[in-house]
């Protein structure tokens, strides 16, 4: 997180800290990140803000050996597409989990972690990651 994009990051705090997305009351679909318009119901849709559940399962995953700037010291690490228990899907790092337990279908739970801390004098970005449970 650099000083230049702080306002952008700050606006995402509810999303990053609380997994705040939204749900269409017309069709019941949950969205993360929040959508402006329900793609199913369009103008008939009614979107309401909601916190996503903290539990989900791994749909697919990969292991990153060459990380981008800011993540190079964390390699190798796992990122996964996670389906939350309300069917919303997101991409997240999977941490604190033994390699053998990271597999398709594995149950995961949200944890609060540092996402980026690259400048010793700059702001720290916090947010969600997931870990395998059970």
């Amino acid at each position: 997180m650099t000083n230049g994009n702080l306002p952008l990051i700050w606006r995402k705090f509810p999303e990053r800290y609380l997994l705040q997305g939204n749900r269409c009351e017309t069709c019941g679909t949950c969205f993360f990140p929040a959508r402006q318009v329900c793609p199913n119901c369009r103008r008939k849709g009614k979107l309401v803000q909601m916190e996503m559940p903290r539990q989900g399962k791994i749909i697919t995953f990969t292991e990153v050996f060459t990380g981008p700037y800011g993540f190079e010291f964390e390699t190798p690490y796992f990122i996964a597409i996670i389906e939350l228990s309300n069917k919303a899907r997101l991409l997240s790092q999977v941490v604190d989990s033994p390699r053998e337990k990271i597999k398709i279908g594995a149950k995961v739970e949200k944890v609060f972690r540092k996402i980026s801390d690259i400048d010793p004098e700059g702001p720290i970005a916090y947010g969600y990651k997931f870990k395998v449970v059970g």
Partner: protein
Amino acid sequence: MIGIVGYGAYIPKYRITVEEIAKTWRKDAEGISSSLNVKEKAVAGFDEDSCTIAVEAARKAVKMAGIDAQKIGAVYVGSESHPYAVKPTASVVADAINAGPELTAADLEFACKAGTAGIQMCMGLVASSMPDWIDYGLAIGSDTAQGRPGDALEYTAASGGAAFIIGKNEKELIASIDQTFSYTTDTPDFWRRQHAEFPRHAGRFTGEPAYFRHVVSAAEGLMAKAKMKPVDFDFAVFHQPNGKFPLRVSKMLGIDPKRAKQGLLTPEIGNTYSGATMIGLASVLDAAKPGQKILAVSYGSGAGSDAFALTVKKGIEKKRPCKKVLEMVKEKEYISYAEYAKFRRKLKTL
């Protein structure tokens, strides 16, 4: 009646053994381990700090309390390893548990006892006669303690934290706080100057005139104020800079050291500084039964102790956390000294 409505503890999963640290510095591991009564310590991961630990502990506390986080009116985070020198950890915690924005919040520092100072501040706020001030206060002790490489404290300086929600609705309490008493003096036994990376300490001076004087004085002052005797307590929890001090201070106070075992976690997770007394109290509450009495005494260098007398309430039976502290202690993965140096950013390039 004021007391605890819910609590949560968080212990990072990584552990480094005393043996591994001693091997790096070519010291006598067995001798160090037995003199400190510490086998290993908990280490925060590369992406963890005292703020993430505080958030995890706070979330568990809110879940156990079964309250709407929006009703929390105060958040205090005690730590000596706040990620920022200026910018509160408490505001991150408040937003991360969705407690804000209508609340008061602040970071506290008093070496290892800032978390219990937060409990006292919350007690004062919830008991205030000012109408409708706050219903609940959240006090957290959380640290990723800094140990100077090669220093004696490196064997114990650990990571962890616990959060307590303080309330006044008798029906919701899992334990009442019946009395509190503090003892504070200017005793320079351990410090970290502004901009210094690691703390320094005064060796053996941290014992008799520092830890023992303050813990004993606070405990005795509490018992005199509460008209209680050492035998009245079923459990005792003390600040635990190593595995020996709490057992010795227990004897000095006339409390059977067996009663201090449930809350003594330093042998397995090290000294979690601001988290130490509070994780110990969480472990005691995991095991305590309604009606039992608990003595909890923190200690912070510099120096001071906060002592509390608690009575466990019936409400605890329905609110027991799904994972006990002792179970968290067992969930671990051992790391090498090199990984520890990376995780705790002791390497200059990190």
